[in-house]
């Protein structure tokens, strides 16, 4: 057991490659046999990942899901921000510049619309739940933007740590939901071409959610959605503690 642990820990990233590979193999097998290809294999793999993250978090009490389990620590590196961004940029290889230009305006509009709409929805829910302090309402609204915008806004405004935790939770729910629901609603919302993928990325904004949601829908759309999504958090951090807070402060 000790030898096993030593080998696994010393080669953590390699272990992660093997474990993820096995998970994807099982997922594609299930997608093929149980759903006859109706549910995309990667959608099942992502759902399995989230499920494992829940049990990993429950078992260890840590904050990085499965990666807190000693033997699976490499998942943390493999699924971390550095590798994610590296792979996302690589998906842009082969993208035509003309496609980006075509959806340029809609993409920019979608980023601002996405930030403002999510913020308003989050803020309204906070008010409905009885919050009247502008700082708390703004922080929770910012959390509905993304789980990064929430704490950035909250700490800029000096919100309590439990409010910041709440905003992170709201952002996490959003991100997880986008991962799971996107492939289910893709047809209904016309998410089948580069333009709508760019708008989708700009509206949702959660890079993780968009990255996983599009991967499970159609990998060809990934670069377009990711392109706009990566501007979203920046715009959110820009608007949250400034204009949006001033507006909330004036209303409440």
């Amino acid at each position: 057991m000790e030898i096993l642990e030593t080998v696994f820990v010393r080669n953590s990233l390699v272990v992660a490659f093997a474990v993820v590979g096995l998970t994807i193999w099982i997922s594609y097998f299930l997608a093929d046999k149980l759903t006859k290809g109706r549910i995309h294999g990667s959608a099942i793999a992502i759902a399995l990942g989230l499920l494992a993250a829940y049990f990993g978090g429950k078992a260890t009490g840590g904050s990085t899901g499965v990666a807190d389990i000693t033997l699976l620590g490499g998942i943390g590196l493999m699924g971390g921000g550095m590798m994610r961004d590296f792979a996302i940029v690589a998906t842009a290889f082969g993208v035509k510049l003309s496609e980006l230009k075509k959806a340029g305006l809609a993409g920019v509009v979608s980023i601002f619309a996405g930030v403002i709409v999510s913020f308003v929805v989050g803020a309204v829910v906070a008010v409905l739940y009885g919050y009247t302090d502008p700082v708390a309402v703004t922080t929770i609204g910012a959390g509905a933007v993304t789980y990064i915008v929430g704490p950035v806004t909250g700490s800029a405004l000096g919100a309590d740590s439990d409010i910041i935790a709440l905003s992170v939770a709201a952002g996490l729910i959003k991100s997880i939901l986008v991962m799971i629901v996107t492939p289910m609603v893709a047809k209904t919302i016309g998410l089948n071409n580069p333009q709508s993928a760019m708008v989708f990325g700009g509206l949702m904004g959660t890079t993780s959610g968009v990255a996983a949601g599009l991967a499970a829908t159609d990998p060809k759309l990934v670069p377009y959605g990711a392109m706009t999504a990566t501007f979203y958090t920046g715009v959110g951090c820009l608007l949250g503690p400034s204009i949006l807070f001033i507006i909330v402060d004036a209303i409440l």
Partner: protein
Amino acid sequence: MIVYGVALLSACLILGMLIGELLGVALGVQANVGGVGIAMLFLVLASNSDKFKALVDGASGTGIQFWSAMYIPIVVAMAARQNVVAAFEGGMLAVVAGVAAVIVSFALVPVISKIGNSGTTSEESQ
């Protein structure tokens, strides 16, 4: 050489991240503003330009394609390291705020997709 493609990809990411950080500082924001998106633009420009042909064609290109293909496995690992427990321990307020934000955003996708699309609708089969 495969590593040329990988190096080009890395250079694009680092350059994009640096610009994203600088944008963040310039705007007074504690975040990287679009670093990954800017990096993607660099890669698109490089792969569409003749000057970088040696870094994107043939074996060099496979170095980039490999990482592009590793995207889904990396996303699966990313899903497995999310703080799912914290998401559900935030209570009903967090759940309602998150769910409502997602529903409204999804509903807006077809609406905003129409912007700038009016001139090109003839291309679409629907």
